[in-house]
């Protein structure tokens, strides 16, 4: 047993997991306030990354100006999606909303590379290549920055939910009718939740895009994010952080330990197996609240 390898894989897993967790944060935010699962989250991350590229490299602005512009635009886009599409689906069965988000994903996957070009784009954050050494373990500096930023954003979300805005959103997620009756503007809270989730997706898209290049494949981040969201509990933000680490570490270790035994490709299966086990043993996730179906 090469303990240094395991240690390195574990640390990488923690960092990469946080980066996946950022996408899951968006899914949880939306589910928490409006009760719908957004299967277009990966596509929105891709769109955010494309916009960040468009507002920086394509025009000629430095990256650190382009990213905030993209964030603001995506916040608006999130609100737009909620207003035009999700508003009309209130009251429809869950499967319809799921299908709508799948349709939105197709639409974005067609529109964004179609208008902005489908070749892989470079989005560089200026992170130096030199690795950081911890004993015999090599820590990838890009992952360090990415994981750090993601963890910070998730913690920021947790803090946000303790602020006044956050309490408002928590009230909406708990009971919409009661929130209306005390004067909370429910539509506004839901719109803000969608906007914030698009912002989280943009950050995730930028971080992943800087490592692999910006193209349509960023929309594939969805599956891992769903696994994290389910494991942590679809309506729990601290759950996202915990679940993200668990999923990240499990995947990394699986690739290191199981791949040589089975012969490859166990990474994706880990996410699926985690989903299945969670749903069979503890359906609402580690930190989720049980939803009681009322007769």
């Amino acid at each position, binding site marked *: 047993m090469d303990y240094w390898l395991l240690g390195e*894989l574990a640390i990488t*897993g923690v960092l990469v997991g946080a980066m996946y967790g950022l996408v899951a944060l968006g899914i949880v935010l939306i589910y928490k306030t409006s009760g719908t699962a957004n299967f277009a989250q990966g596509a929105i991350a891709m769109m955010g990354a494309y916009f960040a590229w468009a507002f920086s490299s394509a025009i000629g602005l430095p990256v650190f100006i382009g990213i905030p512009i993209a964030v603001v635009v995506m916040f608006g886009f999130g609100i737009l999606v909620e207003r035009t599409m999700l508003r009309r689906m209130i009251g429809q069965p869950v499967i319809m909303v799921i299908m709508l988000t799948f349709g939105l994903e197709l639409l974005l996957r067609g529109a964004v*590379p179609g208008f902005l070009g*489908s070749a892989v784009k470079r989005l560089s954050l200026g992170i130096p290549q030199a690795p950081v050494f911890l004993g015999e373990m*090599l820590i*990838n500096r890009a992952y360090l920055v990415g994981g750090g930023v993601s963890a910070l954003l998730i913690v920021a979300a947790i803090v946000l939910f303790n602020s006044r805005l956050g309490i408002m959103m928590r009230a909406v997620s708990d009971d919409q009718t009661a929130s209306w009756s005390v004067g909370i503007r429910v539509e506004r809270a839901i719109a803000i939740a969608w906007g914030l989730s698009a912002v989280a997706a943009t950050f995730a898209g930028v971080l992943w895009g800087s490592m*692999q*290049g910006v193209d349509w*494949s960023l929309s594939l981040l969805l599956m891992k994010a769903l696994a994290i969201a389910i494991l942590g509990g679809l309506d729990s933000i601290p759950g996202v952080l915990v679940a993200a680490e668990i999923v990240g570490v499990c995947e990394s270790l699986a690739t290191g330990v199981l791949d040589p035994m089975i012969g490859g*490709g166990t990474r994706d299966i880990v996410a699926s197996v985690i989903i299945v086990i969670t749903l069979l043993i503890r359906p609402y996730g580690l930190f989720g609240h049980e939803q009681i179906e009322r007769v």
Partner: protein
Amino acid sequence: MSRGRRGAIKPVATREDDMRLTRRSFVATTAATALTGLRFSMRSAVAADAKVIKFGMPQDFTKIYTFVTAEYSQGARDYFTLVNGRGGVNGYKIDAEVSDHANDLPRAIEAYERLKREGMVLIDPLSTPVARALVSRALEDKINLVTAFSGRSDAADGAVFPYVMPLSPNYWTQAGLIIDFFRQQDKDLKGKKIVLVHIDTPFGKEPIPIFQALGQKLGYSFETFPYTPPGNDQSAIWPQVRRAKPDWVVFWGAGVGQTTALSEAVRNGIPMDRMSSSVWISESDMDVVGKDAVKGVLKFEPCASGRSPKVVADIIKEVAGKGQGAGPEAKIGTSYYNYGVMMAAIMVEGVRVAFQKNPNGPITGPWLNDGLTAITDFTAEGLLPAMTVTKDDHQGGGKGRIARWDGTKFVPQTDWFSANQDVVWAEIKKSAENFKTTGK
């Protein structure tokens, strides 16, 4: 809407009525679109020009092969424009019909059937799953199925696959050539360690038998590290590669798998000049990772790259210069663009030789097949190694060369050579035999 009578209360337009109006007009628009769409596709079948040779190029622009298809298609189309601009072949123009099948089999089969009805004699799907699904149809309908670098590696055996034309070095040949280059560099591979980092799909696993067979022959140890498709997360792979301390690393992926592999390798400190890829790496990939960061990386080149080959220079002058280019001029001369030009040149050469053999022959699939299988020593004015296609060898000789990235372009390190073809053909024969008897 109801017309209110005098004195009667006019009903207020309800939301439901509005919805129905919107719904009705929406449904009507959709139905009209569908009918027009079908009519359009019917109409294009009627126009059968007298002196046109039809090539079908339905390819995957939007799903998995996006990284290569746009530039490849641009290169092919520019070459056809060049040839047509010079009067075509024997007065016949080449008509390449390009469309998107998005790697979806029903769409691909629809495109195939539609193009067949329009009289195409050659189809190039540039997609392995689509090519595999079309193999039985192409063999039955006697239409030439070009599988450039993709599809079935064993289709090089023309005896078993008469109408499947790779016309390019297949993955086994590429693997054999890469190993031979390593051997040339190191003089002797005995006791060395060679590692293959590949995408965990049939495409990624394809060269493994060749690497293993050569390992037994030349005495090197061989290890594989598969990563899950599409390969945007290889964080757990490269630490293992680093620990394995390989002498040579071959990375075998596509699109995002390649760029991620390179950036991970850089960050893990793997020396770039001991890493080699298959055909699927290009200047745009280098751009994404950082041109200077990956100086020294090797790749397999089936044709010359850059803008200096005469054909490409001609295209710049006669096609792009006149504004008839099929895409952005900046992409002319990139690796995938040149692959497109290479394949188009071979196809047109096939047409020329077919005219030589049967000048009056009706333009059909078997007619073109005769031409394609008789190409001898074709170099497309210096773009390719001398390629000879025969009825038994649809690969064209299996020559290529290794090139190294120097920060701005790929610089060839060797001449055009072929190597280890005995091992490769043994594998081809074995697999083709399997297909013939059991249909695997």
